[in-house]
């Protein structure tokens, strides 16, 4: 187990390094205006060059990389240029992340509590009513872009239930709709995967043996199938949890929640390059870290995993 963890950790670190570097290099292609803010037109060529040089953007690539990483290790993500001029990005993040995480975790909790039982129900009533309803729900959520149903939700549900439209930290009832909206996608995912894994397990030989032993269907479901089906799902959990940091772009803008999602939109619309860069790097890293944690979690639950799992076969 320890050997496996160490190996995965090494793989993750290497991948992380590669991804961050690639993204960093890609970001060198960002349009220049993003480094200047309002003053761009007023400056002439020479002045622009001077400013770019002072930011280290005219240095040779390997120097830029070196500086980037050394800053990173010091916890310095640079300063925002346009969004909040001269303010350290790390500060900005600190004020925004809590909101996103709060809603993200709440949404995830709802998704799990609703999604997993739904998936089980669907597997048990295969091809009958509940399965069809659940499938209809999943198809809708997967096919229609989230923006659309979030909008419709906000439009109609607030009317029906007389809920406040915008988020207000002082009114608890204003937290409900955003959290529920955010959970819809997760619910669909968990239900779909749960159903799939359970149906797979139900076809396996050891279930037939359990039946031959004289166990009732219900017992078999709970004692054999459920645990076996949940284990593969567990690997997705850490990633989802970490992604709550990114915040839902739609939800936050629809309900005016001052979180990370809105930050990304603003950064892009105002072309604040350093901010965009910092955010992109964070999101890229989250995925890798999440995958690593997910694998470790899986390995601790499934006694069969000891060494190599083939990559590219996820």
């Amino acid at each position: 187990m320890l050997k496996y963890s160490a190996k995965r950790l090494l793989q993750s670190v290497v991948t992380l390094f590669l991804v961050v570097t690639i993204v960093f290099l890609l970001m060198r292609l960002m349009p220049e205006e993003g480094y200047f803010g309002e003053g761009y037109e007023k400056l002439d060529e020479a002045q622009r060059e001077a400013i770019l040089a002072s930011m280290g953007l005219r240095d040779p690539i390997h120097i830029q990389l070196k500086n980037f990483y050394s800053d990173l290790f010091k916890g310095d993500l640079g300063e925002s240029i346009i969004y909040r001029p001269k303010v350290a990005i790390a500060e900005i993040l600190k004020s925004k992340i809590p909101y996103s995480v709060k809603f993200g975790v709440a949404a995830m909790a709802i998704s799990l509590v609703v999604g997993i039982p739904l998936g089980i129900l669907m597997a048990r009533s295969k091809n009958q009513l509940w399965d069809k309803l659940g499938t209809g729900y999943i198809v809708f959520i997967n096919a229609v872009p989230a923006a659309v149903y979030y909008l419709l939700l906000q439009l109609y549900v607030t009317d029906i239930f007389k809920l406040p439209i915008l988020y207000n930290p002082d009114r608890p009832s204003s937290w409900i709709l955003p959290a529920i909206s955010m959970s819809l996608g997760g619910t669909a995912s968990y239900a779909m995967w749960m159903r799939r894994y359970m149906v797979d397990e139900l076809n396996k030989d050891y279930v037939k043996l359990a039946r031959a032993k004289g166990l009732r269907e219900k017992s078999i479901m709970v004692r054999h199938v459920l645990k076996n089906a949940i284990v593969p799902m567990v690997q997705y959990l850490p990633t989802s949890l970490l992604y709550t940091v990114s915040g839902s772009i739609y939800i936050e803008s629809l309900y005016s929640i001052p979180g990370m999602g809105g930050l990304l939109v603003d950064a892009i619309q105002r072309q604040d390059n350093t901010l965009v860069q910092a955010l992109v790097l964070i999101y890229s890293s989250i995925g890798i870290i999440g995958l690593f944690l997910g694998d470790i979690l899986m390995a601790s639950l499934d006694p069969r995993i000891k060494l190599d799992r083939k990559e590219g076969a996820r």
Partner: protein
Amino acid sequence: MDNSNVILSVKDLVVKFNLRGKVLTAIRGASLDLYEGESLAIVGESGAGKSVFTKTFMGLLDANGWIDSGSILYKGEDLAKYKTEDDWIKIRGKEFAMVFQEPMTSLNPLRTIGSQVEEAVVLHQGLTGEEAKQKVIEILDDVGIQDPERRYYQYPHEFSGGMRQRVVIAIAVACNPRILICDEPTTALDVTIQAQILNLLKELQKKYNLTIIYITHDLGVVANVADRIAVMYAGDIIEIGTSEEVFYNAQHPYTWALLSSLPQLGVKGQDLYSIKGTPPNLFNEIKGDAFAPRNDKALKIDFIKRPPYFEVSPTHKAKTWLLDPRAPKVEPPESIKFLRRKWKVKANERSE
């Protein structure tokens, strides 16, 4: 084999399956009597219906299959009439237990083997906690697993194929059944392990007073363990008798063909015998003897009317028109004649 104490009696069982909207008749009116304490082997080609036949005793048919007609009499009840889970719970484990073919996938990979055997003990032997655990260790020892106290806590992937099969047998035995059905128990194992498993089953049979049904296509296995042999073809039992009778005095042309295929009976330098043709399509209704199209010595009536059982001895009968007194005398293949000579020798020995 004990005296005629029939514990299971199957009469004219017909089992059908719904595949792609079409109906396939897997069992076409098979009958069988099972005697207490015996070892009965059901042999036949793949697809003959051996597994399906025994699954009906436990209600383990796939969802698209059903019993169309016939009866399965056990302890005064007709199992063919059972429909609900509550009905089958009375049977599964308690009366009938099954050992499956694939030891590699028959066990839950995420649970210790100890817990899986214990499940059966708790369910059928009324023990719990420490008592149950001790019983499990005792059974593991019985099936020949070394160091059972430690292995109790291990997972299936830590066992080899042969050992896993022993665990599966342990689970079956732990259910305390009356009848044990072994569906190709050694097919997936090495030849060297096969003998060990078969011996194990023989020992357990004695110790736990079991009646065993072996399903196999391997006549070698049969020779080793069976008191009686039932030969199955296209969903019907076409010949049944004691081991000796079926081997040395086979009457049905299919049994002849089956025996002739044994490499041991081949003659060095000549081609090995193989049965021509393929088993019939069970989606269609079969008229007459199912084996007739593949039998180059078939009679006209074989294509028209299904043969009934003809008795050869009180314990041996076969469904072939060749046994009707009006049928011409047919020369069986060389290898069968060879076996018949041995039969005569044995008969003489017995009468002395």
